[in-house]
C-alpha cells in the first residue's frame, strides 16, 4: 500500500478537499464584477439616498446572489465545462471539488443573500434577487441553454436584474428608469455573447451547446448581432430622450452607441471564418464590456451632478 492510500484511509467519507480559492472560483468573480457594478449604479442613480451600511449590504447581497447563481450553474454544467477549453480548468471539471459541495455552497449562499437583503433592506429587492437567481439557474441553465439558440437572449434577463435590485433597495419601488436599465442589459447580452460565440464556436459545438453560431452558422449570427444592437442603442438613448437624464449622459451615450454600432456593423459584414483571425469580433466583445461599464458610470455621474 503506498503512502497516499494509507493516509487517505482514515479520512472520513465526504471529506471536502477543495481549496477556499476553488469556492471563490465557483462564484465566477469576473462575471460578478459587472453585476455588482450595474447593481451599484442602480442604487446610486435612484432619487432617494440609502444609508451607506444598507447600501453596502445591498451590493454585498447582489454579489453573493450572483455568486450563488454562478456556483449552481457550474454544479449543473460540469459535463459541458469539461469539454470546453475556456471552462475545463474550473473546480468541478478539473476534479478539485465534488459536486455535492458545489450544490450545498450555491444553495446556502443564495438563500443567505436573499434572507439578508430581505431582513436588512426591503422585501421587494429581496424578491427580485431571488427571482434573478432562480431565473439564471432554472430558466437559463437547466431549461434553455441546452435546448435553444435563443438561450442567451432569454437568459440574459438574469444578468439584467441588478440595476432593478439596486433601485428597489433605495426606493422600495420600481420606476421607468430602472426598467430601461434592465432592458438595456437584456438587449446588450445577445451582441455581447454572440460576438464571443463566433470565435469560440468550436468549443460550443464540441460541448453540444446550441449557440446561435453553432446552430444557424456565423453569417446568421453576425446579422443577429447587428439587429440586436439596434434596439439596444434605442433603449440606451431612451433615458435622455424621455428627460430622465441630462446632457452628460445624452452626449456620452451618443458617442458610446455610435462606436458600438460601428463595431457591430463591421462584425455584420465580416466574412472571416478563422477564429484566430476574428479581430473585429474580439474587438466588439471587448468593447461591449467597456461600453456597459462606461454607460452605467456616466448615468450615475449625470444623475449625481445633474
Amino acid at each position, binding site marked *: 500500500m503506498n*503512502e*497516499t492510500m494509507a*493516509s*487517505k484511509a482514515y*479520512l472520513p467519507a465526504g*471529506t*471536502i*478537499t*477543495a*481549496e*477556499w480559492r476553488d*469556492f471563490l472560483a465557483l462564484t465566477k468573480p469576473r462575471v460578478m464584477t459587472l453585476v455588482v457594478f450595474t447593481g451599484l449604479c442602480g442604487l446610486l442613480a435612484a432619487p432617494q439616498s440609502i*444609508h451607506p*451600511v*444598507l447600501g*453596502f*449590504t445591498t451590493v*454585498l447581497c447582489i454579489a453573493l446572489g450572483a455568486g450563488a447563481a454562478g456556483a449552481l450553474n457550474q454544479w449543473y454544467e460540469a459535463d459541458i465545462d469539461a469539454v470546453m477549453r475556456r471552462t475545463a480548468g474550473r473546480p468541478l471539471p*478539473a*476534479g*478539485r471539488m465534488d459536486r455535492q459541495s458545489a450544490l450545498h455552497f450555491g444553495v446556502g449562499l443564495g438563500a443567505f443573500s436573499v434572507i439578508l437583503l430581505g431582513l*436588512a433592506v426591503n422585501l421587494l429587492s429581496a424578491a427580485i434577487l431571488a427571482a434573478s437567481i432562480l431565473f439564471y439557474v432554472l430558466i437559463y441553465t437547466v431549461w434553455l441553454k441546452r435546448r435553444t439558440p435563443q438561450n442567451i437572449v432569454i437568459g440574459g434577463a438574469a444578468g439584467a436584474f441588478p440595476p432593478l435590485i439596486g433601485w428597489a433597495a433605495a426606493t422600495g419601488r420600481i420606476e421607468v428608469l430602472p426598467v430601461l436599465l434592465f432592458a438595456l442589459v437584456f438587449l446588450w447580452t445577445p451582441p455581447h455573447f454572440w460576438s464571443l460565440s463566433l470565435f469560440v464556436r468550436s468549443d460550443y459545438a464540441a460541448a453540444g451547446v446550441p449557440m446561435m453560431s453553432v446552430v444557424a452558422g456565423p453569417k446568421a449570427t453576425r446579422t443577429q448581432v447587428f439587429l440586436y444592437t439596434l434596439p439596444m442603442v434605442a433603449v440606451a438613448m431612451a433615458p435622455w430622450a424621455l428627460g430622465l437624464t441630462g446632457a452628460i449622459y445624452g452626449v456620452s451615450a451618443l458617442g458610446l452607441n455610435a462606436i458600438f454600432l460601428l463595431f457591430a456593423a463591421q462584425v455584420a459584414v465580416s466574412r472571416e471564418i478563422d477564429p484566430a483571425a476574428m479581430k473585429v469580433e474580439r474587438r466588439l466583445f471587448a468593447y461591449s464590456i467597456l461600453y456597459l461599464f462606461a454607460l452605467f458610470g456616466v448615468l450615475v455621474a449625470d444623475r449625481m451632478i445633474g
Partner: protein
Amino acid sequence: MNPDDKLSDSEIRRRQHSRATAMALVLGALVILFFAISIVKMS
C-alpha cells in the same frame, strides 16, 4: 481519475486549515456587518 486521490494527508489538512481560516474571517466580517445593520435599524 480525481486529482484529489493523489493528495497527501498533510495537504488535505493544510487545505482544511486554510478553509477554516477563510471561514473565520468571513464570520468575523459578518458579525461586524450585522452589528452595523442593527445600529442603523435602531437609529
